[in-house]
């Protein structure tokens, strides 16, 4: 049973359709990528999951039960456009947000102390928010998002504003959260992090779902029978009727070849052929990056 499900969600703003019959199904303990160009309707869907707005039609389920207003306590949301009260002290502000999520004050302080220590932020507690750098503020926001130990966490562009070291810290924390049983919806334009983190994705364009499934399946499906081959030395490979050579490069004493099969030939047969020409270092199916898939799918729809 999926932890979260949205079925046939439609949302209109006046005459503008923000979401048109969109469904997603997020398995438990999965990192689920919600992708799409700007203005596709991702934020609207996220707001509907958070019950900030309601759908015009469609149903939402958490743990198999209809989503209720009280469920906000089991959902954590880090919005893309996020901010803090600049004049408040860091500790007080974090406690305030925790209280809004329903945590008692003492418990909030106890958990915050733990997280501040873990992420090396103990000195910030009494400082005013405006004294912190943007990255530091992002860290505070990250903590307030997960402090109430939500079962479902929604991160919208969680890595913006972080230096590589802190981005890595946050990435590890996200993986750790999943390890501990959280389910994560992850919205981003950074396709490298999608490949790295996401198990499943949904791609939304112009209010409609245009691609969904597990990242591995999608990438092999879009692989389009291409293979990458690396050989020792300067070796020229010729295409035959069964496969074509797309490109060949020789550098650093190695030849890199991209080939595409055109008939129903097995990889063993290809390797048999090529072994005669030179010494093979590696042979891999050429998976397209999520970036390529994203651009190709969106452009084919426009």
């Amino acid at each position: 049973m999926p932890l979260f499900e949205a079925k046939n969600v439609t949302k209109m703003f006046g005459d503008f359709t923000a979401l048109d019959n969109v469904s997603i199904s997020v398995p438990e303990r999965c990192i689920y990528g919600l992708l799409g160009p700007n203005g596709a309707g991702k934020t609207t869907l996220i707001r509907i999951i958070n019950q900030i707005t309601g759908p015009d039609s469609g149903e939402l389920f958490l743990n198999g039960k209809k989503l209720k207003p009280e469920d906000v306590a089991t959902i954590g949301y880090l919005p893309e456009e996020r901010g803090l009260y600049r004049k408040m002290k860091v500790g007080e502000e974090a406690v305030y947000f925790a209280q809004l999520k329903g945590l008692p004050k003492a418990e909030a302080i106890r958990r915050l102390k733990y997280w501040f220590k873990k992420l090396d932020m103990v000195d910030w507690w009494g400082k005013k928010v405006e004294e912190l750098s943007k990255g530091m503020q992002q860290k505070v926001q990250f903590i307030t998002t997960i402090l109430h130990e939500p079962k479902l966490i929604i991160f919208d562009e969680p890595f913006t504003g972080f230096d590589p070291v802190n981005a890595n810290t946050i990435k590890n924390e996200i993986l750790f959260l999943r390890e501990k049983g959280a389910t994560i919806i992850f919205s981003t334009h950074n396709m490298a992090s999608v490949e790295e983190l996401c198990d499943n994705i949904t791609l939304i364009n112009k209010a409609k779902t245009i691609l969904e499934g597990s990242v591995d399946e999608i990438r092999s499906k879009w692989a389009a029978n291409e293979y990458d081959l690396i050989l020792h030395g300067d070796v020229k490979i010729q295409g035959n009727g069964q496969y074509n050579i797309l490109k060949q490069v020789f550098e650093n004493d190695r030849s890199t070849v991209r080939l595409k099969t055109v008939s129903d030939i097995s990889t063993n047969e290809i390797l048999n052929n090529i072994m005669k020409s030179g010494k093979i270092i590696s042979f891999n199916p050429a998976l397209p990056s999520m970036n390529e898939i994203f651009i190709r799918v969106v452009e084919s729809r426009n």
Partner: protein
Amino acid sequence: MNKVSVIIKREYLTRVRKKSFLVMTILAPLLMASLIIIMPAMMVTGNKEFKKIAVIDDGANIYGTAIPDTKDADFIYLGNADKNALIQNFDSAGYYAVLYISPKSENSPIIYSKKQPPIMLLDHISGSLEKEIEKTRLLQYNIENLDSILKQIRTQVVPVTKIVDEAGKQTETSTGIAMALAYIGGFVMYMLVFMFGAQVMRGVIEEKVSRVVEVIVSSVKPVQLMMGKIIGVALVGLTQFMIWVILTMGAVAVLKSVVLKKTNMTEITQNITQSVMTENQTPAPASATPATQISPEMAEFSKLFDNAMNQNWPLIILSFIFYFITGYLLYASVFAAIGSAVDNETETQQFMLPVTIPIILGLIVAMGTMQNPESPLSFWFSMIPLTSPIVMMARIPFGVPAWQIILSMSLMVVTFLAFVWMAAKVYRTGILMYGKKASWKEMWKWLRYTG
């Protein structure tokens, strides 16, 4: 509900802890107190611009010396000094004005001056001259003992106002006190509603601009956030108002005792000598005031104080609280909706005018109400919910029929509920909408969006 109280607490504490709150809370009553004490003091003694006025009458010397000096002006009789020369150079000779009383037409004296003379001066001149002319004309009838007769007939009329209630009970009241209360009630209402309504708006804009609102609305409903802010700011307003009332009363008491101690003795002796002197110059009132130790100002003050206590204070205070709460909620919710629709504070300008107009209009009508509390204009504006908090507060000290208060309050409740409901709908959409040029039309559209 628990979350709303968390929001109220934050809104309240962050504002009360600000340095500007402390400064305002302490400075405002000091300012008010000094206004209350110093303004009347300035009006009584402060007008030190002493004027010398030359009086000429072509040497006839009938009315030339008839005008007594006042605190502000000395009248100096120059007899038959050359009129034309004097008019040319009275300014350089140190005179403020030249008063020319023609012996042929004493009823229309002419005042030559560089500036428009103040109305008080004109009243003084015409009053003194009228008395003297009447006296001179009476003298022509050769009446015996004219002086003592005149002394007897001279009188002063001071009406005492008494309000008769349904039970026939009479209460002595003062129109002056009613006017003062009307003014203070209307004005304070205007100030509080406007000041704290605008604070709500600024708070909403701050949350929207800093994008804090994005984080908060995932935990609480937008309407909870809006109401939490409105109530939190209202509590700040009430706190500040209560401190002001207490501090102002304390400051007035302290300043009064200091000022009165200094001036009391000199004032009393001055008054006595003055009344002795005036007795010699002009006929004293028939019922001569006994020379008591209490100065007339103090007697007047304690009488005013008694009259003030005769006002229906429970009604005034209860209606003030009612109209403050409902009026504030009405305007604060409109301000919140505006704050939610804009992307920064400068954009609010175009929305402020339509909101300000009813408030200002209410204040203007309230001022007119003091002249005529029963006028149809005052009646209608004390019924229309957008202006009724201010205008009704100005009417109540003069006495308002119960059915009018009940009607006005009922309309107020219905309207403020409707406004809060509409504002919440606009707010809900507005706070999450960026980069859209806000307009009334756009807000009307948001009003009709579904959940």
